[in-house]
């Protein structure tokens, strides 16, 4: 019966474009609080899906449900088409070999060499020693640590430890890699190198990656799609560039605050109800960001305006920009300018007015 259901589900997964993971209305409570409160989500084959949220949003619980380290209260999880929420510990073990996992604190075994750490998943699987060591050597080559095979983890830097963690997670040739805040304990430069390694593995091996983080920079650098999670629910989901261009919720906006242009504080403090200059926030993305928008504006409308702050960023190859524009109110053209910009797919918001030049 179970077998029958899982084959049917495998067929369904195939039909939906080969989702590696499909989560349906997942719930997990701890005491009185719901850590995961009705999440439905799919991870498509070959993509990097980023899940972002503040600490305590439930992302750690969610990712741990996927390999059964955490048991959900309600809902279903399909991994490669197979429902796993009903599986016992023993049945979860072969499943976990299909899912690699890397951790914030690396979790390398200090009593084992780098090579033994990488080979451990294969040892647990019962593979012969020669095969284990050959695979470990191959993976250490891949992550650029071939010369550290005989070293102990204590002799490695944080970035090197995470590379070993990645090699270890790949040892059993998983279908899915889970990354639990894998770069949160690393400095920005090391973070970049680890992220580019993940991207490289994703592209070269076609490995599906699900990563959770609280840093938008991580999402921006590697993810294809992003899901924003808050209080156990997904509040926003979509392609990374489109979520960056047009965040719909306050949570997303506040998570984006660090890496998207913001109105300089000195200026923000002086904004008032009225004044000689209106400060507009103009968000552009895709087509609107490719066209010579400001030049068109200057040609079409004679009112004076100036660029106060902002810029155009490229995310997944798509231009995403935020410009802060000051428009002279004395010209009486503010409404006209807003209409002009809106007509060209730019989103305009009047932030306020300043009375003298900044």
């Amino acid at each position, binding site marked *: 019966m179970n077998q029958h259901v899982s084959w049917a589900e495998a067929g369904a997964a195939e039909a939906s474009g080969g989702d590696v993971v499909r989560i349906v209305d997942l719930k997990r409570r701890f005491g009185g609080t719901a850590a995961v409160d009705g999440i439905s989500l799919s991870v498509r084959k070959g993509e990097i899906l980023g899940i972002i949220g503040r600490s305590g949003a439930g992302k750690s619980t969610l990712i741990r449900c996927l*390999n059964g*380290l955490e048991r959900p209260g309600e809902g279903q999880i399909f991994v490669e088409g197979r429902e796993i929420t009903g599986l016992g*510990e*023993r049945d*979860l*073990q*072969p*499943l*976990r*070999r299909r*899912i*690699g*996992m890397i*951790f914030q*604190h690396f*979790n*390398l*075994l*200090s*009593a*084992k060499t780098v090579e033994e750490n990488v080979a*451990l*998943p294969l*040892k*647990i*699987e019962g593979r012969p020693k020669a095969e284990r060591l050959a695979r470990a050597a191959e993976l250490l080559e891949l992550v650029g640590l071939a010369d550290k095979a005989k070293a*102990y*983890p*204590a002799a490695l830097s944080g970035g090197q430890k995470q590379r070993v963690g990645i090699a*270890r*997670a790949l*040892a*059993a040739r998983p279908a899915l890699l*889970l990354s639990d805040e894998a770069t949160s304990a690393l400095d920005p430069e090391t973070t970049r190198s680890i992220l580019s390694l993940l991207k490289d593995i994703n592209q070269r091996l076609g490995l599906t990656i699900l990563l959770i983080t609280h840093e938008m920079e991580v999402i921006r650098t590697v993810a294809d799609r992003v899901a924003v999670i808050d209080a156990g629910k997904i509040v926003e989901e979509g392609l990374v560039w489109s979520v960056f261009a047009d965040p719909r919720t306050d949570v997303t906006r506040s998570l984006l605050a660090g890496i998207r242009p913001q109105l300089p504080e000195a200026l923000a403090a002086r904004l008032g109800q009225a004044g000689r200059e209106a400060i507009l926030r103009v968000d552009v993305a895709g087509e609107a960001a490719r066209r010579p928008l400001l030049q068109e504006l200057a040609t079409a409308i004679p009112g004076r305006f100036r660029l106060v702050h902002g810029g155009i960023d490229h995310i997944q190859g798509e231009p995403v920009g935020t410009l802060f524009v000051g428009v002279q109110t004395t010209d009486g053209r503010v409404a006209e300018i807003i209409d002009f910009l809106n007509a060209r797919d730019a989103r305009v918001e009047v932030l306020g007015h300043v009375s003298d030049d900044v």
Partner: protein
Amino acid sequence: MSQTMFDLLLRSLWETVVMTGASGLISLVFGLPLGLALVATDRGGIAEQLWLNRILGGIVNGFRSVPFIILLVALIPLTRLIVGTSIGTWAAIVPLSIAATPYYARIAEVSLREVDRGLIEAVRAMGGGRWAIVREVLVPEALPGIVAGFTVTLVTLVGASAMAGAIGAGGLGDLAIRYGYQRFETSVMVAVVAVLIVLVCGIQWIGDRLMARLDRRA
């Protein structure tokens, strides 16, 4: 010191070494699994069984709270059953082992408990079962502490074996009491204490060296 005294000292040293070594080995063989069981069956452990944990904990506490000299006497029937006699070096090994096993189990438990839970989670995440966790994580990661704890247990056993002289077990303690104390032969007392100091320092030195060699953390 006369030649006979010297021979006696050597024989007593040998008896102490045999008592300490044998009961130490037995406490390792039974105490380590017992320590593992205490950690594994506790709340959040890899084989959580709270009722079993309480029973094991109760037994360990029970044995540890009985003064050794009383245990020595109370266990005479058991000793006779196992060894066939209740007198002598081999007979002393029974109560020594029974006292040292729960003692060592508690020390091993502390080391095993200190193993980072993240490491256990990592091995579970790669599909490892309980046995893999014990073999690949708990024991190897706690090994420096397990060795250090064994050293402490051996040193404690050297002291306890002196008490075993009370049931005619021989050993250095017995020699010190009979000759040094009861016959006022101060030179024997001094010689015994000196030998004990060297013995204890030797055990500690070997233990420390072994621990340093096994410790790969930082």
